[in-house]
């Protein structure tokens, strides 16, 4: 889309306007933590954050920093590291609106988005309190087989998809391997912003074994170089997570003050936008 997608991390973060619908992947798919750092530094506000289909540290930090108005997710989890304290605190104090979902509903609604459909039906769900609590989900009758109730989910078309990938080429093609949810996210979103470990001079479509694992440049608006850009989360196949750093975060984020001191240290500045 953008003929000159390569930019700095700060330029990428500056292009994420307050209030946008931002879609991000789960920890195993490449989380753009360096970009998240820049977003928190610039004090982004009012995000509608969609997690595909869950999030962990990234959502917890953005929520704690006051960047999120609405959270649409199947779960926020830091797994064995412990509870996502800032998420829990914000939910209990009504500081964010939560659209509780289930993993396949997030995937399906994005698939509807990529096809330009208004909605998509999905099995399961009926009788769950998720449906009872989601005013935007409707139980409809299967038009081809009356008497067969099914849930209709509105499409999700985010303003921006944001993720971290191993590398991109100078034309803006991004290698994602078999992390195909990233492709769906890019297809469904108006723009895609990517941080990468490296930028290569060769064209990724020159190698057919690589081409199948590429998000083509037509979807990609901005690419910023960010070495170790998923830290402290890992980038599977490239580097692992920094468990000590995540454990320390979870310890500190138990309290608002602890979280503030962690963020200040992370930003390397004395003050965080309140």
């Amino acid at each position, binding site marked *: 889309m953008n003929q000159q997608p390569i930019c700095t991390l700060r330029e990428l973060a500056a292009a994420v306007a307050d209030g946008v619908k931002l879609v991000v992947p789960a920890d195993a798919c490449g989380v753009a933590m360096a970009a998240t750092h820049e977003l928190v530094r610039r004090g982004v506000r009012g995000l509608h954050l969609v997690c595909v289909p869950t999030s962990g540290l990234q959502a917890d930090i953005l929520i704690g920093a006051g960047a999120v108005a609405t959270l649409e997710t199947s779960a926020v989890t830091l797994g064995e590291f412990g509870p996502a304290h800032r998420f829990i605190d914000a939910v209990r104090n009504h500081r964010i609106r939560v659209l509780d979902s289930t993993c396949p509903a997030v995937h399906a609604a994005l698939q509807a988005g990529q096809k330009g459909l208004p909605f998509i039906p999905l099995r399961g769900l009926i009788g769950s*309190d998720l449906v009872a609590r989601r005013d935007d989900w409707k139980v409809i009758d299967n038009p081809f087989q009356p008497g067969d109730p099914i849930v209709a989910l509105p499409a999700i078309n985010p303003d921006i998809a944001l993720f971290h990938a191993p590398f991109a080429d100078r034309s803006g093609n991004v290698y994602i391997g078999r992390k195909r949810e990233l492709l769906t996210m890019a297809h469904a979103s108006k723009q895609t912003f990517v941080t990468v470990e490296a930028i290569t001079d060769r064209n990724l479509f020159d190698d057919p074994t690589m081409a199948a694992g590429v998000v083509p440049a037509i979807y990609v608006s901005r690419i910023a170089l960010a070495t170790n850009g998923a830290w402290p989360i890992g980038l599977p196949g490239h580097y692992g997570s920094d468990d000590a750093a995540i454990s320390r975060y979870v310890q500190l984020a138990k309290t608002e003050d602890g979280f503030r001191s962690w963020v200040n240290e992370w930003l390397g500045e004395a003050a965080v936008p309140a």
Partner: protein
Amino acid sequence: MSPAYSRAELLVAVIAGLLEGCRHVVVGASSPIPGAAALLRRELDEGAMRVTILGSNRYNAYTNGGVETFDLAAQGRVDAFFLGGGQIDGQGNINLVGTGSYPANDVRWPGSFGSAYLYYLVPKVILFREEHTRRVLVPKVDFISAPGVSAPEVYRPGGPYGLLTGLAWFSFDKHRQRFRLESVHPGHSVEEIRDRTGFEFDCPENVPFTRAPGPEMLALIRGRIRSEIAETYPRFAATFAN
């Protein structure tokens, strides 16, 4: 005399037994015991059973992203899956969202994950929760992430097969909409199960002990299975065996 196996080893062996006859088992996030059990079943079946472990690289042959678990389940290509719950009630309803009233729950858990889909579509959903207390096994869940049973008009080829805890194994009768105590793990009693279960369940006059793993099974768990599960759960692999 204390048993020659750990509780985790017992649970791995029990689940491996429950998976008999499956063609493909998927193991979700944060599930080391079900993961080890699925690998054990695969070993006992001489590799005939497929195992997908989310979070593993070796045991994940997906090329269409995370949605593939759900699409496979919808196609009938997943025979068994595991779900837990912060609360589980006597009708098999599970709650992964939180206690008290929604949305500002008293205790908030991560969220429903894929439960509100897979519970309907996977034929053999094994509810697995090690903690067996009245705070987990409640008369009625505060939030239904996924219901144990559905109205007849709802498309539902799957559902709960049973509930395994650190103390016992219950089967689930979808017509009676109740659990039935099938076995109590060695070292525990029916009275203890009653004391620590918050919901009503069917209980036959004689409840056997859960079958303990024999020496050959234990050797397999401590050898091959321990090294295989270490790829996904290194810390668990280092500590779970006696």
